[in-house]
């Protein structure tokens, strides 16, 4: 009779005689390192692309442009305007007797503008003529005889002129061909509607003098308001 020996007492051969001694970590195969490196580079590349294409400060605060043309009614969130015409002159006589003198040339924009949803504290402070890299603000020298900084009403268009002083060279330049009239409520155009109407300054002939009419409520051209 033999007593079978249990597995615990059997002398056992080391099943993996080439394993490292206790306390030393296993060697990582070289291809695992390569895969980690490739994944890392890939993640960095993706992060780079995301960081590059994410909207910058200017991007997420940009004005919301609404495009239109001369003669069309262009409607933004709280501003609606119809540009009736654009003229150029050496000197302008406005309805309150102001006579404009400039070393450049006057651009006279006739337009009707109103607000859409509310009229609390709404002034037409954001009239800008952009020619190339330069922006020209609507002149307030004539005072109340132009629409610059005038108070606007909901649904009732205020019709009158806006005057811009620009250097005479801009009338013949390539920038003048792609000039834009930008209209907004505030002088700070960010994060609100901005009406953009392209204006070709090169087609304008400079008149010696222009007389402008007094700003009136309502649209004498007879177009429907709002």
């Amino acid at each position: 009779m033999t007593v079978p020996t249990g597995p615990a007492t059997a002398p056992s051969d080391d099943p993996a005689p080439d394993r490292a001694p206790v306390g030393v970590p296993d060697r990582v195969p070289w291809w695992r390192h390569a895969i980690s490196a490739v994944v890392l580079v890939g993640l960095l590349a993706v992060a780079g692309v995301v960081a590059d294409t994410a909207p910058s400060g200017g991007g997420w605060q940009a004005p919301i442009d609404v495009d239109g043309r001369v003669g069309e009614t262009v409607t933004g969130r709280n501003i609606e305007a119809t540009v009736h015409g654009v003229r150029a002159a050496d000197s302008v006589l406005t309805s309150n007797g102001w006579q404009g003198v400039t070393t450049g040339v006057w651009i006279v924009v006739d337009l009707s503008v109103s607000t859409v949803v509310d009229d609390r504290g709404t002034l037409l402070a954001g009239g800008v003529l952009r020619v190339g890299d330069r922006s020209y603000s609507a002149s307030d020298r004539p005072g109340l005889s132009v629409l610059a900084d005038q108070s606007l009403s909901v649904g009732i268009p205020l019709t009158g002129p806006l005057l811009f002083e620009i250097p005479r060279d801009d009338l013949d330049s390539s920038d003048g061909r792609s000039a834009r009239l930008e209209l907004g409520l505030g002088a700070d155009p960010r994060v609100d509607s901005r009406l953009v109407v392209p204006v070709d300054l090169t087609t304008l002939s400079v008149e010696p003098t222009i007389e402008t009419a007094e700003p009136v409520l309502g649209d004498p051209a007879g177009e429907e308001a709002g």
Partner: protein
Amino acid sequence: MRARAKALGEKVPTKYVVTGLTGVVLLATAGFGGLADAPATALPAVGAGESVTGAQLRIAVERAVLIDGFPEQHIVPDPGNRLLVLVTEVENLTDVPVSTSNELGAADNLRPVGVPGLDAASEPFTVVVLDDAAALAELQPRVPVELAYIWQVADDALAADDPIEVDVYDKTYRAEGFVTYGARYENPFVTARAELEVDDVGAGGDG
């Protein structure tokens, strides 16, 4: 080789190395003038009508006039004062309109010097477009405008044909920041001195 350098580094106390290097750098500055004061550059002097081109504006002070007031334009000094008017031609060299107000605009760019009662901090009484006396106008890019810078001075502060000096200031450009909107020009510094003679026109005409 590395072991020897390391052993040497461990022997020398750090403070000797730092002091030694500082001494060497100071000795090297002797070759560039040492610790003497830098020579101050003299301010360029301009005459009447000569323009000074800055980073933001080109300014030419044309004439200086003493006048009682401009009653038709409602620009009237306090009793006992007269108006010192600097007639200038200003051109905006930037791409956006520049105001003529204080602290943000062209009103900061001129200051009379040596006039009793006025100093470098005296803001103008008003700055108006010469043709129509429009205040707070905006200077459009590349459109030169004649501006009248007006200060109040005491009746006896200046007389006809007195020489007057005017400091012309320039400003430094500061780009749009993370919490600020728009680039701006700030920190006016004197860039030239205009020398003129004062005309006294009494009460008549405009400047």
